[in-house]
C-alpha cells in the first residue's frame, strides 16, 4: 500500500508547478489555469489525508474547494474579459497603470 507522504509529495510538487505557472506565464488564462492546478494539488492532499485519517471531512472539504475553484474561475475569467476590453492583451505584465 502506498504510504501517505507519497501522495503528499506529489501534491506538493504539483502545487509548486502551479506556482511556477502563476509566476512566469504571460498569459492571464494560463495563469488562471495554474491557480486551478494549485487548488487541485491541495485537493489531492485533502483526499489523501481523509483516506489515511479515515474521516470524511477531507472529501467534503474537496467538495467545497471545487465550489470555490469554480467561483474563482468564473470571476477570474470575467475579470480577464473586462480587462481585455480595456487593453487588447492578456499579458499580466502589461498592467502598469498603477504603480509606486
Amino acid at each position, binding site marked *: 500500500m502506498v504510504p501517505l507522504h507519497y501522495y503528499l509529495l506529489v501534491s506538493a510538487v504539483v502545487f509548486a508547478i502551479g506556482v511556477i505557472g*502563476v509566476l512566469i506565464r504571460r498569459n492571464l488564462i494560463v495563469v*488562471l489555469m495554474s491557480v486551478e492546478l494549485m487548488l487541485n494539488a491541495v485537493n489531492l492532499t485533502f483526499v489523501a489525508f481523509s483516506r489515511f485519517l479515515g474521516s470524511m*471531512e*477531507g472529501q467534503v472539504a474537496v467538495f467545497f474547494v471545487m465550489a470555490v475553484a469554480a467561483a474563482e474561475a468564473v470571476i477570474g475569467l470575467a*475579470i480577464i474579459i473586462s*480587462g481585455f476590453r480595456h487593453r487588447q492583451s492578456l499579458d499580466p505584465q502589461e*498592467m502598469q*497603470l498603477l504603480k509606486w
Partner: protein
Amino acid sequence: MDVDFTPLLPTAQLLVTALVVMLRDLFIEEHEPKCILVFLSLVGIGLAAGETLALWGVQESAFHDSIVLDNFAHYFALIFMLAAGLTILSSIDYVRQAGIHEGEFYALVLFATVGMMLMAAANDLMVFFLGLETMSIAVYVLTGMWRTNSRSSEAAMKYFLMGAFATGFLLYGIALIYGATGSTNLDLISDYLAEQPSEWPLYLIGGGFLLLIGFTFKVGAVPFHFWVPDVYEGAPTPVTGFMSVAVKAAAFAAWARILLHKLSALDSDWLFPLWVITIGTMTLGNLLAITQSSVKRMLAYSSIAHAGYLLIAIVVGAEWGGLPLLFYVLTYSFMTIGAFAVLSCLSEANNQRENYRDFAGLGFKRPFLGLAMSLFMLSLAGFPPLGGFAGKFYVFRAAVLSGHIGLAIIGVLNSLLSVIYYLRVIVAMYMEEGGAEGKSFRQASAVYVAIAVAAIGTLYLGILPASALNWSRIAFASLE
C-alpha cells in the same frame, strides 16, 4: 435534526436584504433614480444591527460548533455593518456618476458583509474559508465594477490574481492542519493541540505558517502588502474605504479568533517572524506614504502602516493585546471611512481629484469637508483628543506593559514619520491656493451624513473612550 437559527439571524437578514435589493433592482427602469435600493439596504443593515445588539451577550454555537455567535462576533459584525452602511451612504452619487450598476453594487457590499460576519463567527476552518471567499469574490467584483475605468479593472485583476494565489497557500495550510489534527473544527483542533503538544507532526507547524501567510496577505502586511497600494488606488473610492476598513477588520477578527486564540499553542513558533513583519509593515508603510502625490494612494500606504500598529497588538499576545486590537479597529474604521468619504466627495467621473493639489484651498472653500478631513488626518496621525490617539495609546500601552518596549518606541517613531504626510493634506487644504473649484463638489447630503457620523465617532472615541473600551474588553473576553 433541530438547529437553532437565532444566532444566524443578522447574517440571514443581510443575505435576504441583498437578494431583495437585487430583485427590486430588476423592476427599475434604466434611468430612474434608484434611491429605493439605498433605502432598502440601509433598512436591512439597520435591522441586522438591531438584531445584533439584541443578541449582545448571547453566547451560542450552532451547526455542530462550526459557527459561534459570541460578543466577539457581534462586535465585529457591528463594525462591518457600520462600514457597509457608511460605504453605501458615501457611494450613492459616486456610483451614479461612475455608471456602476447600483443594484449589484449594494447587493455585493451586503454579500461581502455577510462573508465577513461568517469569518468573524467561524469556528470551523471550512466555514471560515468559505466566508473569506465570499467576501473576497464580492470585493474583487466591487473593485472591478467601474468597468469604464481601466484602472479599476487593472486593480481588480491584480487583486484577484494575488488573492487567488494567497488562497492557494491558505487552503494548503488548512489541508495540512486538517491532516495533522484530523479535523477542521477549531475546537477539536485546539483540543488536539492542548492534548499532545509533544508529537505534533512537522507539517502541522508548516500548515500554521501557511495559514499565517494567508492572513498576513489579507491584512496587507509586508512583504505580502504589494497588492494594497495598487488595488486601493484603482478601486472606486467608496470600495477602497470599505476594503481598507471592513476587509482588514474581518481579517483581523479571524486572526484574533483562529491564530491568536484557538491556535495560540503555535504562538511561540511565529512570534519572531511576526515581530519582524510588524516592524517592517509599520516602517515601510509610513516611509512609502511620504512621497506619494495622490492622497488616495497615500491613504493606501497609511493603511498598511496602521495594519502594522494593529499587528503590535497581535504580537504582544492575547492577554494584553486583545482589547487594544478591538478598540483600535473600531477607531480606525471611523477615521478611515471618513477620510475616504471625503475623498469620494471630491471625485468626478472624468476627473477623480485624488492628488494633494486638488485639495488646495479646500479648507476655506468647503469648510465642512476641510474640517472633517483635517480631523481624520490628525486622528490618523495620532493627535489627542481624537480616536486615533486613543487607539495608538492603548496599543503602545499594551506593548509597554507586555515588555515590548522596543515595539512601542519604533511605533511612536513611525507615527512621527506619519505626521509628515498627514499634515501635508492639511497644508494643502488650508495653506495653499488653487485646486479644485469649491462648487463642483457633490452636495448630496448622504455623503455628508456619512462624513459627519465618522467625524463624530472619531471625536467621541477620542474624548470619551471609556464605554467603547468596555465593549471591546467584553467582546474579547467572550473568546475565552
